[in-house]
């Protein structure tokens, strides 16, 4: 059989209205318009109800309340605040507290998590089992129970007079954790600046060394020079100020301590609870990361005679980090979100203060919106950074 002569097949189609109903693209468009309309209508309906209900209850709307005087005190704060300040400033104090407790929690959780995670892959059976038991326990007890537990523990610690002495470095009492600190000195600010400058210098130097290696093929070991560049400037500044080495020791005095620095019981309890809880998850992430680099990779790297440090730097770490970093950051975000448990034990974080604001003003929608927006922003920034990181390290596949 030969192919028929070219040209249109059959009769030219006449478009009827019925055809439109059967058209795939029309249907697709229709479903989408219906869905979008449904969402918009639902939103409008809810909005209208909210406006009506608020009107009936005589509750103000809008964010004007942020400028009103708060009339409540906040025990713990990183910035100046008094009850004559505005609700907005109160919320800012809360946000700072959220961030500070989260930052401390992240550090503690990371240190414990990495230690336990490495123990999880130890060749020593005993260590492995201990790590596994730890992980199973801290991960499976609700974080809120852990926080409440630590809060109760600290509340039941002895008063400052009989406080537990931490090897002369500080005290643990029902007033929280008190520890020694270098006495305040103007040198500290400059040391911090020098430290930052050192990091910048080190990263520039490292990049120059790499350029040099790529251009000439000669390898310059930058490990110690970089350490020197980072630690040297602060030490020099310190010496330049005449090496101030006075320490402020906490002392028992009456019902409290003087000197040193004190972290409130709520801060300690909240930080301990959320950090220990997260450390279990971080340990599992680290374990997975360590186990992700197949043995063959290291052997392949050895077979092309890479130096051990290069194997670590260019073969093992990139693969392990690619497995570790994304879930690790999402663990950090969830730790930050868990810090909102503060409201149960009375630590003045963003949610706790937001809750107070909500109860005083009655403007629940706006107060909750503020809290949600802040946390959403934190999550968004993190996931943007994560996407950027992933794009940076993605193995080019296909």
């Amino acid at each position: 059989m030969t192919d028929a002569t070219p040209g249109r097949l059959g009769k030219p189609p006449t478009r009827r209205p019925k055809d439109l109903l059967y058209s795939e693209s029309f249907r697709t468009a229709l479903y989408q318009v219906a869905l979008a309309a449904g969402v918009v209508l639902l939103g409008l309906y809810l909005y209208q109800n909210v406006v009506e209900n608020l009107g009936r209850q005589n509750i103000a709307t809008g964010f004007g309340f942020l400028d009103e005087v708060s009339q409540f005190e906040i025990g713990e704060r990183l910035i100046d605040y008094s009850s004559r300040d505005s609700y907005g400033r109160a919320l800012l104090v809360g946000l700072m507290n959220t961030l500070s407790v989260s930052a401390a929690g992240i550090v503690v959780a990371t240190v414990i998590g990495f230690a336990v995670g490495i123990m999880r892959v130890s060749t020593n059976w005993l260590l492995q089992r201990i790590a596994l038991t730890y992980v199973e326990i801290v991960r499976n007890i609700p974080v809120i129970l852990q926080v409440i537990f630590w809060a109760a523990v600290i509340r039941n610690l002895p008063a400052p007079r009989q406080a537990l002495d931490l090897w002369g470095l500080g005290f643990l009492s029902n007033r929280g954790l008190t520890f020694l600190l270098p006495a305040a000195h103007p040198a500290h600010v400059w040391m911090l600046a020098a430290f930052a400058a050192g990091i910048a210098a080190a990263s520039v130097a490292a990049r120059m060394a790499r350029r040099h290696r790529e251009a000439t093929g000669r390898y310059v070991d930058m490990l110690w020079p970089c350490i020197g560049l980072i630690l040297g400037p602060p030490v020099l500044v310190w010496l330049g100020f005449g090496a101030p080495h006075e320490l402020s020791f906490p002392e028992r005095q009456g019902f409290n301590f003087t000197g040193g620095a004190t972290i409130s019981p709520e801060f300690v309890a909240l930080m301990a609870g959320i950090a220990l809880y997260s450390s279990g998850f971080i340990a599992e992430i680290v374990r997975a990361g360590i186990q992700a680099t197949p043995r063959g990779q290291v052997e392949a790297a050895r077979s092309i005679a890479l130096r051990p440090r290069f194997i670590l730097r260019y073969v093992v770490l990139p693969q392990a980090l690619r497995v570790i970093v994304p879930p690790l950051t999402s663990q950090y975000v969830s730790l930050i979100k868990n810090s909102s448990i503060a409201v149960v034990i009375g630590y003045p974080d963003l949610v706790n203060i937001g809750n107070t604001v909500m109860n005083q003003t009655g403007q629940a929608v706006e107060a909750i919106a503020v809290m949600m927006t802040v946390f959403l922003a934190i999550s968004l920034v993190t996931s943007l950074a994560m996407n950027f990181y992933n794009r940076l390290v993605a193995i080019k596949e296909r």
Partner: protein
Amino acid sequence: MTHSAQIEPTGAPVIQMRDVSKWFGQFQVLHEVDLDVGKGERVVVCGPSGSGKSTLIRCINRLEVHQSGQIVVNGLELSDNVKNIEKIRRNIGMVFQNFNLFPHLTVLENLTLGPMLTRHMKKAAAEELAMHFLHKVRIPEQAQKYPLQLSGGQQQRVAIARSLCMEPEIMLFDEPTSALDPEMIKEVLDTMIELAESGMTMIVVTHEMGFARTVADKVVFMADGRKVEAAPPEEFFGNPREHRTRAFLDQILKH
């Protein structure tokens, strides 16, 4: 094999393609392809990798959407119209290179799913139909197994039976034997030959030139998205007109 003496294509075209073109983004995969397939006709499509063979037959049951030209199946034009698409798809069975059996369903469930859901058959009737086709492909004893427990050849025969359970008029095969070990190719080809003898309209993308020679009524050669040559097998293999066809045949028949 002397099947072509027994069943002559009736001539009434069941598939007509005119000037069919398709693009993936900027890249044109099909260039104004014309193809007519009559009832009971068996067409083998061959050509180098990436020449658009798969895309061509996937356009026929609209797994891919062609962007210009016309495809008419059984008098119905394949367009945006969902009713037509559904009618056409029901008439066409498709067998894939990597079987695409449903791994979570038993062989029998794989076969009865289509008839029960789209042809609204009763379970008993669907199972009877399924067993009938499992007998046809000679593996009735595997009915209760899961696909991954079968050999590649058996899986492909199940896939053929699954398509046949929809009782289609047309069967499309996209390299049905390419993923198989050599010793399993024959069992699948035998099944296909029997199917051809029963008068099924078939379009087969394959590199099995033996199959093309004995079974095909027409061999289509594609290259770079164009239909380069279409001829009966004797002519195609004995006296190819185009030099590209010759080059391709030289290469493929050398081994």
